[in-house]
C-alpha cells in the first residue's frame, strides 16, 4: 500500500473522478435502448472503482485529506463545499464503487433485453454518483443534497418497472418514508447551523471540533458563536437519527424496504448492500460526536428492536427476496445498535462485511429467480418464481450459485471462517462488554442480539434448504450465465474472512477495525472466548434443526395457523397498524377538510363571486355606454374622415388632375382677390 503516494490535490482529483464517471453514465439515457450501453456503464463503474481504490490505498490510516472551496455567500456567511477523505469515507468509497462495479457486471446479463435498459444504466449511474457524493462531502449541506439524490434515484430504480402497479406503489412508499427521514435530517441541519454557524463536518465533528468544545452549563448548550437550551442538543441528535432511521430502514420506518423488492434484483442488491441503507449508518458515523446519552439509549432500543423484529419476520416469509430484505433490516439493526453502544468501529466493520455477503445473497437469489423466470417462460408455465415453497433441489443444477449462496448464508449466520462471523462477533462481544457496566434493560441488549443471531441462522438455513435441497421440481434448469457466476465467485471470496483479517477466529486482527478508534469499553477477556463459542454452537444447532425440518422433510413443520406464525408472516401487522394509525385518520381529516372546503370556504368564495358579478355588471354598463360611446364616437369620426379622404385616392387620373388644378386655380384666384 505504501508504494502509491500522491499529493492531497491529486487524491482529491481522483475522488472527483470516482464521482464523475458514474455521473457520465446518466447520459446513456439519451441513447436509444441498446445492449452495448452496458459496456459504457461498466467502464464508468470500473474507472470509478479504480480511482476509489487508489484513494483508499493512499488515505487509509494516513493523514486525513480535507479540500474545500468557497461555494456561495449569503450576507456575511460563506458556505464552503469540498471533499473530506478520512478512513470512514474512503472505506465507504471503495465499498460503494466496488459493489456497484460488481452489480453493473451482473446487470449486463440480468437486465439483458429489457426495453428500458438505457434508463436502467442511467439511474444506476445516478445512484452510484449520489452515494459516492454523499460519502465524500465535507459539508452537511452537500450531504443533504446527495442524501436527497440517493432517495430520488432509489425511487427511480425501485419503480423501474413502473408499469407494474406494485412497483410504482413501492417506489412511492420508499420515497414518502424517506421524506420523513429527510425532514429529520433537515431539522438537524438547521439546528446545527443555528448553533454553530457552519456546515463544515470537520469543524463541527472533527477532533477538537465545535461540537466537542461546546459546553453545557446550567442547562444551556453553549457554542463559541451561539447558545440554546440543552434540549436542542437531544433534538438535533434525534433529528439526525430519524434521517438515518428512514434511510437505514429502522423500526418504525422500515416498511419501505421489503416493498422495495419490486425493483430489479440487482438494484435490491445495490440498495441493500452498499448504497442506500448504508447511508443511514454512515450518517450516524459522521455526526457521531453529537449524540448524548438520551439519544444513544434511543438508538440502542431502536436498533435492537429492529434487529429482533427483522429476524422474526424473516422466519416465515416465503418470497425469497422478502426474506433477504428482512434479514437486511435485522442486520442494519445490529449496526445501529452497535453505534448506540459506542462500538463505532465495529458497526462500520459489520457494515463492510455485510455489504459483501448481502450483495452476494441478493445476486445469488437473483440468479435463481432469473433462471426460474427463463425456465417458466420457456416452458410456458405459470407459477411465482420468487416463492421458495415452489423451489427445491436446485443445488445440483446450479452448483456455483449454490456454493456462493452457502458462503453468504454462513456469513449471515455468523459461522466461522467468514467475514460475517468476525464482524458479528465483534458487535456481540462489544455489546456484552458494554452491558456489563450497566444495570436494567441494558443488560438485556446482548442477549437479544444473540437470540437474533440464532434466529438469523435458522431462517437463512430454511431458505438454503428449501431452495437448494430436496426434490428437484424443474428438470432442465441450468446454471446462470458465466458473467453472472463470475461475479458470484468474486463476491464469495470477498465474503470469506481472508478479506478482513488473517486470523479466521478472532476479529481483533482485522485491519478495518484498526482503522477506527476503539469503543472505549473496558474489555473482558472472558467474553472473547465464551461468546463466539456459544453463538457458533447455537447457530450450528439452528442450522441442523433447519436441515431436519426443511431438507429432510420428515413431516415436522410449524403450524401455519398459529398466532405467532401469522404475526411473523404479516410482518407484525405493522403495515396494517400504519394503515389504521396514519392512513385512515388522514383520509378522515381529508374528508372533513373536503366538507369544510365545500360548505364554508366555497360558500364564502361563491358569495364573493356573486358580489363581483353584480359589480362587474355595473362596470359593464358603464363601459358599454360611456367609455365605449366615447371610443366609438372617435372611431366613427375617424372612419368618416378616412372615407372622405379616400375619395381623393380614386385611382383616376382625371380626378387627380381636377384636385390638383382646383388647388392651383383656387390659390391664384384667392391671391388675386386678396
Amino acid at each position: 500500500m505504501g508504494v502509491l503516494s500522491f499529493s492531497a490535490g491529486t487524491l482529491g482529483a481522483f475522488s472527483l473522478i470516482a464521482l464523475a464517471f458514474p455521473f457520465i453514465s446518466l447520459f446513456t439515457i439519451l441513447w436509444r435502448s441498446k445492449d452495448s450501453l452496458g459496456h459504457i456503464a461498466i467502464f464508468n463503474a470500473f474507472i470509478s472503482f479504480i480511482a476509489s481504490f487508489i484513494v483508499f490505498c493512499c488515505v487509509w490510516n494516513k493523514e486525513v485529506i480535507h479540500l474545500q472551496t468557497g461555494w456561495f455567500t449569503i450576507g456575511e456567511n460563506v458556505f464552503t463545499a469540498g471533499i473530506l477523505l478520512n478512513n470512514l469515507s474512503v472505506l465507504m468509497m471503495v465499498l460503494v464503487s466496488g459493489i456497484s462495479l460488481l452489480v453493473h457486471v451482473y446487470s449486463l446479463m440480468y437486465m439483458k433485453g429489457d426495453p428500458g435498459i438505457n434508463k436502467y444504466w442511467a439511474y444506476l449511474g445516478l445512484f452510484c454518483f449520489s452515494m459516492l457524493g454523499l460519502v465524500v462531502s465535507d459539508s452537511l449541506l452537500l450531504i443533504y443534497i446527495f442524501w436527497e439524490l440517493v432517495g430520488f434515484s432509489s425511487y427511480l430504480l425501485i419503480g423501474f418497472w413502473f408499469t407494474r402497479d406494485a412497483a410504482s406503489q413501492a417506489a412511492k412508499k420508499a420515497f414518502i418514508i424517506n421524506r420523513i427521514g429527510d425532514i429529520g435530517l433537515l431539522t438537524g441541519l438547521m439546528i446545527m447551523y443555528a448553533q454553530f454557524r457552519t456546515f463544515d463536518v470537520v469543524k463541527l465533528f472533527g477532533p477538537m471540533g465545535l461540537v466537542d468544545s461546546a459546553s453545557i452549563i446550567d442547562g444551556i448548550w453553549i457554542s463559541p458563536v451561539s447558545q440554546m437550551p440543552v434540549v436542542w442538543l437531544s433534538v438535533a441528535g434525534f433529528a439526525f437519527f430519524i434521517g438515518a432511521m428512514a434511510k437505514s430502514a429502522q423500526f418504525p420506518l422500515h416498511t419501505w424496504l421489503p416493498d422495495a423488492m419490486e425493483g430489479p434484483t440487482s438494484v435490491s442488491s445495490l440498495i441493500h448492500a452498499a448504497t442506500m441503507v448504508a447511508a443511514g449508518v454512515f450518517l450516524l458515523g459522521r455526526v457521531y460526536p453529537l449524540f448524548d446519552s438520551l439519544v444513544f439509549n434511543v438508538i440502542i432500543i431502536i436498533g435492537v428492536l429492529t434487529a429482533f423484529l427483522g429476524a422474526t419476520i424473516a422466519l416465515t416469509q416465503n418470497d425469497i427476496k422478502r426474506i433477504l430484505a428482512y434479514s437486511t433490516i435485522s442486520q442494519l439493526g445490529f449496526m445501529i445498535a452497535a453505534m448506540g453502544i459506542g462500538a463505532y468501529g465495529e458497526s462500520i466493520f459489520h457494515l463492510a462485511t455485510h455489504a459483501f455477503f448481502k450483495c452476494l445473497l441478493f445476486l445469488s437469489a437473483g440468479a435463481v429467480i432469473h433462471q426460474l423466470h427463463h425456465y417458466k417462460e420457456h416452458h410456458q408455465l405459470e407459477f411465482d418464481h420468487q416463492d421458495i415453497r415452489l423451489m427445491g433441489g436446485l443445488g445440483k443444477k446450479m452448483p456455483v450459485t449454490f456454493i456462493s449462496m452457502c458462503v453468504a448464508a454462513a456469513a449471515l449466520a455468523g459461522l466461522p471462517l467468514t467475514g460475517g462471523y468476525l464482524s458479528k462477533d465483534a458487535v456481540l462481544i462489544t455489546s456484552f462488554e458494554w452491558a456489563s457496566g450497566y444495570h436494567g434493560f441494558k443488560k438485556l441488549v446482548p442477549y437479544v442480539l444473540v437470540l437474533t443471531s440464532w434466529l438469523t441462522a435458522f431462517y437463512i438455513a430454511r431458505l438454503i434448504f428449501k431452495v437448494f435441497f430436496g426434490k428437484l421440481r424443474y428438470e432442465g434448469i441450468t446454471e446462470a450465465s458465466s458473467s453472472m457466476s463470475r461475479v458470484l465467485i468474486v463476491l464469495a471470496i470477498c465474503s470469506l474472512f481472508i478479506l478482513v483479517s488473517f486470523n479466521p477466529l478472532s476479529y481483533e486482527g482485522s485491519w478495518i477495525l484498526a482503522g477506527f478508534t476503539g469503543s472505549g469499553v473496558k474489555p473482558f477477556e472472558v467474553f472473547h472466548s465464551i461468546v463466539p463459542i456459544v453463538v457458533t454452537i447455537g447457530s450450528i444447532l439452528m442450522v441442523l434443526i433447519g436441515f431436519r425440518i426443511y431438507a429432510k422433510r420428515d413431516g415436522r413443520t410449524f403450524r401455519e395457523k398459529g398466532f405467532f406464525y401469522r404475526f411473523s408472516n404479516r410482518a407484525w401487522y405493522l403495515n396494517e397498524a400504519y394503515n389504521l394509525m396514519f392512513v385512515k385518520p388522514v383520509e378522515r381529516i381529508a374528508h372533513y377538510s373536503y366538507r369544510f372546503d365545500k360548505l364554508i370556504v366555497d360558500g364564502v368564495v361563491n358569495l364573493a363571486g356573486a358580489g363581483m358579478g353584480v359589480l362587474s355588471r355595473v362596470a359593464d354598463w358603464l363601459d358599454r355606454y360611456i367609455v365605449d360611446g366615447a371610443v366609438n364616437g372617435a372611431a366613427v369620426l375617424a372612419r368618416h374622415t378616412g372615407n372622405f379622404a379616400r375619395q381623393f385616392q380614386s385611382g383616376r387620373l382625371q380626378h387627380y388632375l381636377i384636385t390638383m388644378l382646383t388647388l392651383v386655380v383656387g390659390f391664384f384666384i384667392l391671391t388675386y382677390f386678396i
Partner: protein
Amino acid sequence: MIPLSHFMFISAVLFCLGLYAVLTKRNAIQVLIGIEFMINAAILNFVAFGRFDKATGGGQMFALFTIVLAAAGVAVALAIILNVYKHFRTINPAKIDSLKD
C-alpha cells in the same frame, strides 16, 4: 393689324377648352385632342409674339419645334392608347383606376 391681346384671348379660350376636354372626357382619344388644343393655344401665342421678334425669329422657330413635338406626342400617345386598350379592354380613363389604394 390685329392687336396682340386678341390673339392672346383666343388662345386663352382655346386653352381652356382643351383643359375642359382633358378634365372631363370619358375617352382617351378626346383627352388627346384636348391636349392638342392646349398645345395649339401655346403655338398661337408663340406665333403672335413672334411678330415682334424679327431679328432672331424665336417665336416662329419654337412654334415649329412645338408642332413637331406635338406630332411626335400624338404618335406615341396613340400607341399607348392602343396598348392600354389591349390591357384593360377599355380606354375610358375613368375606369382605369389601378392606382387606387
